[in-house]
């Protein structure tokens, strides 16, 4: 795609951003209560964030906090399209795909008053690709160097064409840190982070809360109604619900799907739903040297297992019909997702037939490793019942999450019920997850054809061409059947005494335009 067409998309995307600001797809409604300026919103997160250093941070909840205090070069809208945030336009890629210019917005200040400019962006991106403990290194692996073109333009030189770059810069890799704070704090930046954002970090009480206050330097501060946001950490979803109902917190993320009906009967509480890009799957170990189950070496048996699972029934029984059943890792709202994906229908008779014709001794044994969490336990039991009905013998092995992940990364499992939080670019949903030697390739898949398709798709910039390549990659993935994709998660945000909160596909609540209600 030429730089001209990218510019046109940039203008269109900026227009879309403006439109989306005025009519968000999923935001809290004012209701009968009057909204007020000022006050501090209390938000219950489902876990405690790790360090508040965008170069190092890895938790989802840290991303939630960053959204209030660390804006990025790019953001994603509800259709997962990249839109400029601190950048002035979409990235302008050279004809050979090896040079990317990023024009920046002018007249912006960090929350400590430091000017935001190309030098500041270079400082952050250099740190992201050089710091030993940087979690962004791999995300920006294609970036060879960063240079300042002028006061408001940076140039990224790439080692190979890399289309997912915009998406990477719409995540933590694109969160720009104040060079003044970086110089003062160095590796301890996360203890007192300073970026560009509607709110500024005030303090953190370890294990308890993170406090942010409205920024005086924010370029769009007229839209910010709250005096501050306090993020508190409540790990138990039942306790988060109770605190929401009692009015102790104004917003609670990731509520239980099973609690939604009850919460919606409470007049003070509003529940917003995000059909997320995250997915859940059954990851099957396909290395016979590591897995004793016949599924490891026989794709037909894996196909029979998929045919035995009724995704709609799983949705109804475990999630009250609230998730989106699907058979592909790419979410439905993603532009690169092929339009012709057809999931195989639940067909227990066909599954039984395949098993009987396979020559295996029935029932076919397989051990299902699951993280020891109530929802996963329920899902596993439903899957076990369905699979056992057609001739499998599924045994469930619940293990504490970190230990389960450890076992899975070592290949010590036969089948693993595991999710992925999803990425806005398809490369992030496939590369490293199903490619040979990938750190998250639990099922030990090693298929050169699939690797080649995923690598080729990341290197082309044309949308149609990328979509075609991802279509072929998904077809190949379906043939291999190393993963049985089950559904895309829906997450729920509960609100009480607050309005104007934005919530969409990335499941990150945004409080920039929120206000408390009387």
């Amino acid at each position, binding site marked *: 795609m030429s730089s001209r067409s990218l510019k046109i998309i940039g203008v269109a995307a900026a227009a879309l951003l403006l439109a989306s600001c005025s009519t968000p797809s999923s935001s809290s409604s004012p209701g009968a209560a009057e909204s007020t300026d000022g006050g501090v919103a209390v938000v219950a997160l489902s876990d405690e964030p790790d360090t508040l250093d965008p170069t190092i941070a890895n938790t989802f909840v840290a991303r939630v906090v960053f959204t209030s205090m660390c804006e990025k070069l790019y953001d994603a809208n509800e259709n997962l399209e990249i839109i400029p945030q601190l950048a002035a336009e979409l990235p302008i890629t050279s004809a050979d795909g090896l040079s990317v210019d990023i024009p920046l917005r002018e007249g912006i200040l960090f929350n400590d008053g430091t000017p935001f400019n190309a030098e500041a962006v270079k400082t952050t991106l250099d740190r992201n690709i050089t710091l*030993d403990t940087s*979690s962004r290194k791999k995300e920006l692996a294609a970036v060879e160097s960063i240079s300042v073109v002028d006061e408001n333009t940076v140039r990224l030189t790439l080692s190979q064409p890399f289309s997912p770059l915009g998406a990477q810069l719409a995540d933590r890799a694109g969160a720009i840190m104040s060079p003044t704070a970086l110089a003062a704090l160095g590796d301890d930046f996360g203890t007192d982070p300073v970026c560009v954002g509607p709110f500024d970090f005030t303090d953190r009480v370890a*294990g308890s809360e993170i406090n942010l206050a409205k920024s005086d330097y924010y370029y769009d501060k007229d839209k910010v109604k709250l005096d501050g946001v306090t993020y508190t950490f409540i790990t138990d979803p039942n306790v988060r619900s109770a605190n929401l109902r009692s009015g102790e917190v104004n917003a609670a993320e990731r509520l239980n799907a099973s609690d939604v009906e009850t919460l919606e009967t409470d007049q003070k509480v509003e529940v917003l739903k995000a059909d997320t890009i995250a997915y859940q799957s059954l990851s099957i170990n396909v290395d016979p040297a590591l897995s004793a189950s016949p599924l490891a070496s026989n794709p037909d048996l894996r196909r029979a297992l998929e045919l035995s699972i009724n995704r709609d029934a799983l949705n109804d029984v475990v999630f009250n019909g609230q998730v989106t059943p699907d058979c592909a890792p790419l979410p439905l709202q993603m532009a690169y997702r092929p339009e012709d994906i057809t999931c195989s229908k639940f067909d227990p008779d066909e599954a039984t037939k395949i098993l009987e014709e396979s020559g295996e001794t029935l029932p076919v044994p397989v051990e299902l490793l699951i993280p020891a969490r109530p929802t996963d336990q329920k899902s596993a039991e439903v899957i076990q019942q369905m699979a056992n009905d057609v001739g499998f013998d599924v045994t469930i092995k619940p293990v504490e999450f970190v230990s389960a992940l450890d076992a899975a990364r070592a290949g010590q499992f036969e089948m693993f019920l595991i999710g992925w939080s999803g990425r806005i670019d398809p490369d992030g949903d496939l590369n490293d997850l199903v490619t040979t030697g990938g750190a998250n390739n639990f099922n030990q898949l090693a298929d050169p054809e699939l690797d080649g398709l995923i690598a080729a798709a990341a290197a082309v910039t044309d949308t149609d061409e990328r979509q075609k390549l991802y279509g072929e990659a998904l077809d190949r993935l379906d043939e291999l059947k190393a993963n049985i994709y089950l559904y895309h998660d829906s997450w729920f945000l509960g609100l009480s005494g607050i309005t104007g909160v934005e919530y969409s596909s990335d499941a990150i609540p945004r409080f920039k335009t929120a206000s408390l209600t009387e």
Partner: protein
Amino acid sequence: MTRFILQRVITSVITLFLASIVVFIGARMLPGDPAQVLAGESADPALLEAIREQFGLNQPIWVQYFTYIGQALTGNLGVSTRDNIPVAEILLQRLPITLELAGLAILIGLVIGITAGVVSAVKRGTFVDYVATGFGLVGLSVPSFWLGLLAILLFAITWQVLPASGFVGFAEDPIGNLRGMILPATVLGIGLSAVLMRQTRAALLGQLSADYVRTARSKGVTRGREVSHALRNSLTTVVTVLGLQLGALIGGAIVTEQIFVIPGFGKLIIDAVAARNYPILQGAVLVAVTGYVLVNLLVDVAYAYLNPRMRLSGGSE
């Protein structure tokens, strides 16, 4: 008495040293790599190695232990792997919160437990006794997480008289602090009161049937004075049980703090286990063990004071 105390102090120091080894090794026996937890979904081998290097996790375990213990003796307990905040700073923030919670829970437990135990013993075989012993049974049987959620449902959601969660420092807002602490302290104290009630009742009944009480009764001592004498002698058992219950109290605090979102020691330990945050886990458990050992040392001393036979036998009883 001095020799007795010295003996107990030496035993306590040895216990603490052994506990430090157990805590250190125990933390590392947990399956799951802390570097993997910190790296999250991005499990890049180079990043994992850099994290292990940063926190010294790639050193042999004995090197890690002696480095840790050497630093710990100077008051440096390392930094939290999650957010790089010094462990000592975090513990100093959390310890007073759990101490306040435990103190209030003990107060509630003592008031309810001893009162109910005395009433139950004095009114043995009556309706009041059945109610008190029934309370003891329920208090011991009901899990604190259930009691906690029930308390939130009733007091915070239905009647809205107390907050469901949260903690405000006493110095910052004394009323707010006590309002936030009432429910968790009561939930924690009820379990303790049930144990104390049963112990008080049993000990007091034993004393009330002792020869010296019968003699006093035959000499016309009032019922109140009779109970007062017997109660003082019963308290040695109650004090010992109270010391032993400290472990249960810390265990109970872990659950209670999770439910009421009290940023104390219990919540800290649970979060540290989930995150494989070794420095926090070691520091918190070591401080808890130190507290437990110190309280039992004090209980031993108090016991020796209340029961002279203890110090005469040098604690070998």
